[in-house]
């Protein structure tokens, strides 16, 4: 690959989920700046990916009965994986995954008491396909993926799944509920060390009355769940924080009549979203996600990104524009150094290996074993990233997914390798290039030894059908392939 293509491939891995051969060829026609522009300004492209589910030429899905991604958890997961593989707006899916980890909400608690169908609706329903126009949390995150954090925080505070997940639906005047108020400051904005226990109690009181309107029959699959501000459950006394809430430095949210008390929460969110601590924490997370999670970022670069965030009214798009066009992002030294999340690993493997005849349903259990069940993060802090993805069991699960995919693609891989059948080495070279992996000499020699082992090379179809999937299995399961 030419140097320009290498950085485009890196961009597509980090700002997307990797690229099929056709996608890489298309993006390589663009300048780097134009490629970034195409990824970031995805609103210019139609959001048409879902219409391709079930069509030939695309990765398949597997469901019991009709495919129902708005009401069946595994179908919702498959729709999302399908989007990751095939969307023309990969950055939108990538940022949705980022936010899903950031506002990590678990389906199993959301579902309790309202049935699986309704729990799935609250997490994943597409409003245009729902009988009550219910919008699931993932769809809300997807719609706001590059919007402002202030809007996102307001939307998440009112999100029905979040109201159940962090118990906002039971936050009342008589007994303020601390769960959401605590995590809002600890995980969604300022971070540990930048708030006190008293701030938690005050934040709980701020959000008293931010409740959930449940349908009379909470198990009715066509009824609506909606945020409601219950003025008569709002605690109206003033709330004082250890940090400024207002631009004049004021730390006290004033006592307000209950009817206007919803403004308390909007004031707190406005303050939290624009605090320098929030800006630095959030851009540091974006730096770790897009650039490097091992290198300590240059403080000046973090400050620069934080400034972009604050000067643009907490909008994420300008921050990503600066990040993706920075020299730090384009430095070849950071290529293939970020530990790939299981979803990233699975989707890239599909895009590079091939998918015809494969179903993303076959990835669901594998993802659980790798430690990333979509819609079911382990806690509100999200998944533990980096090295923690690589326990022995999780590594084995990646190797075994590689085996499942390679076995499924056996004939496709053999056919694709036919042009390289002249020698074991040429087949290995072809597959290493197809999977865009930077294997060192040691691994390359292992692949060669395997390809030549036990056979007198003829390049027959039968040999290709054994060796091509074998080599792909070994590459996808190698330590080198686990990085994006």
């Amino acid at each position, binding site marked *: 690959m030419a140097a320009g293509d290498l950085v485009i491939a890196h961009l597509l891995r980090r700002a997307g989920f990797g690229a099929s051969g056709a996608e890489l060829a298309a993006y390589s026609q663009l300048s780097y700046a134009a490629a970034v522009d195409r990824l970031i300004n995805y609103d210019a492209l139609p959001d048409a990916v879902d219409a391709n589910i079930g069509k030939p030429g695309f990765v398949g899905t597997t469901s019991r009965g009709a495919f129902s991604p708005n009401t069946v958890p595994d179908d919702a997961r498959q729709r999302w994986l399908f989007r990751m593989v095939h969307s023309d707006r990969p950055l939108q899916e990538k940022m949705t995954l980022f936010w899903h980890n950031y506002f990590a909400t678990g389906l199993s608690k959301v579902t309790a008491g309202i049935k699986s169908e309704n729990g799935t609706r609250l997490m994943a329903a597409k409003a245009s396909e729902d009988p009550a126009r219910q919008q699931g949390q993932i769809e809300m995150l997807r719609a706001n993926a590059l919007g402002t954090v202030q809007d996102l925080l307001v939307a998440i505070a009112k999100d029905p799944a979040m109201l159940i997940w962090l118990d906002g639906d039971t936050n009342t005047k008589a007994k303020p509920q601390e769960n959401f108020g605590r995590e809002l400051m600890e995980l969604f904005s300022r971070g540990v060390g930048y708030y006190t226990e008293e701030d938690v109690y005050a934040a709980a009181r701020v959000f008293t009355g931010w409740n959930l309107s449940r349908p009379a029959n909470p198990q009715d699959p066509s009824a609506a769940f909606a945020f409601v501000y219950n003025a008569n459950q709002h605690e109206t006394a003033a709330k004082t924080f250890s940090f400024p809430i207002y631009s004049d430095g004021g730390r006290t949210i004033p006592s307000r009549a209950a009817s206007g008390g919803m403004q308390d929460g909007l004031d707190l969110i406005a303050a939290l979203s624009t605090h320098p601590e929030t800006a630095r924490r959030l851009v540091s997370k974006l730096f770790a996600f897009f650039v490097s999670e091992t290198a300590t970022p240059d403080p000046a670069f973090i400050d620069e990104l934080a400034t972009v965030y604050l000067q643009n009214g907490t909008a994420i798009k300008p921050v990503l524009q600066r990040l993706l066009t920075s020299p730090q992002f384009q430095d070849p030294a950071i290529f293939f150094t970020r530990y790939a999340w299981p979803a990233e690993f699975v989707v890239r493997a599909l895009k590079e290996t091939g998918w015809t005849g494969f179903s993303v349903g076959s990835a669901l259990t594998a993802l659980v074993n790798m430690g990333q069940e979509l819609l079911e993060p382990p806690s509100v802090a999200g998944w533990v990233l980096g090295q923690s993805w690589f326990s*022995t069991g999780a590594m084995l699960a990646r190797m075994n997914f590689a085996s499942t995919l390679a076995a499924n693609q056996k004939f496709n891989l053999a056919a694709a390798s036919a042009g390289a059948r002249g020698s074991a080495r040429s087949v290995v070279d072809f597959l290493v290039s197809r999977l865009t992996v930077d294997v060192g000499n*040691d691994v390359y020699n*292992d692949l060669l030894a395997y390809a030549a082992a036990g056979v007198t090379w003829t390049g027959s179809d039968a040999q290709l059908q054994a060796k091509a999937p074998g080599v792909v299995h070994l590459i996808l399961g190698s330590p080198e392939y686990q990085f994006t």
Partner: protein
Amino acid sequence: MMTRRDFVKNGVTAFTFSLAAPAFLSDLARAQGAASRNLIVLDLSGGNDGLSMLVPYTDASYYSRRPTLAIPAGTVLQVGADASGKALGLHPKLTGLRDIFNQGRLALVQRVGYENSSRSHFSGTDIWSTANPSNSTGSGWVGRYLSTLPAPLDPLVAWNTTGDTPHALLSASVSVASIPSVTSYAFSSPNSGDEAARERTAAASIASHVPVDKPHVAFVGTSARAAMATLDRVAAVGQYKPTVSYPNNGFGQALQAVSGAMAKGVGTRVFWVQTGGFDTHAAQDTTADAGAYVKLMVTLNDGITALHNDLQNQGLLNSTLLLTFSEFGRRVSENGSKGTDHGAASVLLAMGGGVRGGLYGTAASLSPDTSNPTLENAAGDVHYETDFRSVYAKVIDNWLGGDSVGVLGGNFRKSGIDFV
């Protein structure tokens, strides 16, 4: 800190180390040979409400502060009174644990915690994991203990039954096997027969390289290598036939794998097991059969009881110690959602053949008087009486035969909690 590995490097054998074992090592530990013992750490994640597990059923404030969550005195499983004379009872569903208690193999250590207890799940878990309230970003206490064992350490020296390596097991020098499912812990291949064997040989070779210029790749290689090196022994554990049937849930199956690993003698010293759902902010329901906390207690009771009975039948109970922890206890007063918010100190369980059963420490008085010294946070939460590191120290010194001062970075030994 001089680790045992340093001793070995310096030419001093593990044998002479044990002869030179310091005086704090209990006679029991020496006599029984600590090397054959194992430890099961059980993480009750989410923040366990100790007051619903070990109920202060004679404390009037318990009933006045928990109008819907208090467990009726007549239904608790009485376990006698603690050193302060306060009568206590186990949650009504802990019948198996009560039996183990009556047999003298279950210790209940009350009010375990630390100063300025964190109310954050994540900071709290990190603090319990690192045993360091002032800087909870470093290595884990179990990892540090393991790193004192003679090198080279086998990848199965610790067996984590969850998918992600818990912070407590992390250390720079010890790789931990994570085996969430024994049956799926196997090498698969797109080919079969000889060709599959060739792939396995190649995969082992690929995993064997240590690219020094790429430490991140080398790290993943370590995991891949450990996976390849443990496949066959884990497969043997998959053949284990327990003497009792374990509950058909994640917790029960994890405990079955633990007893299988012990019975098959794979060499594991520390097992890590987790069961979650303890973050009961709302609808905690401690009494109805379908109640959230009741289900937690049933899961806990049935799992531990099955493990106890199986190990007893296998003759392995005397070499096993199970120790629970949770990142914090919960608020004394219930909240408006019929649940409890994040609190401070809580109760720990220790179970095993070598345990001196009974009640340790004293229960808090739950009086809402803000001068009540057994509570903190304006009498909102239970104040600790025993530093959690003292419990760890007891386990490290008296059960594992290690040096708690080195592992914990200080002397936390404390009398009065001699449960092992």
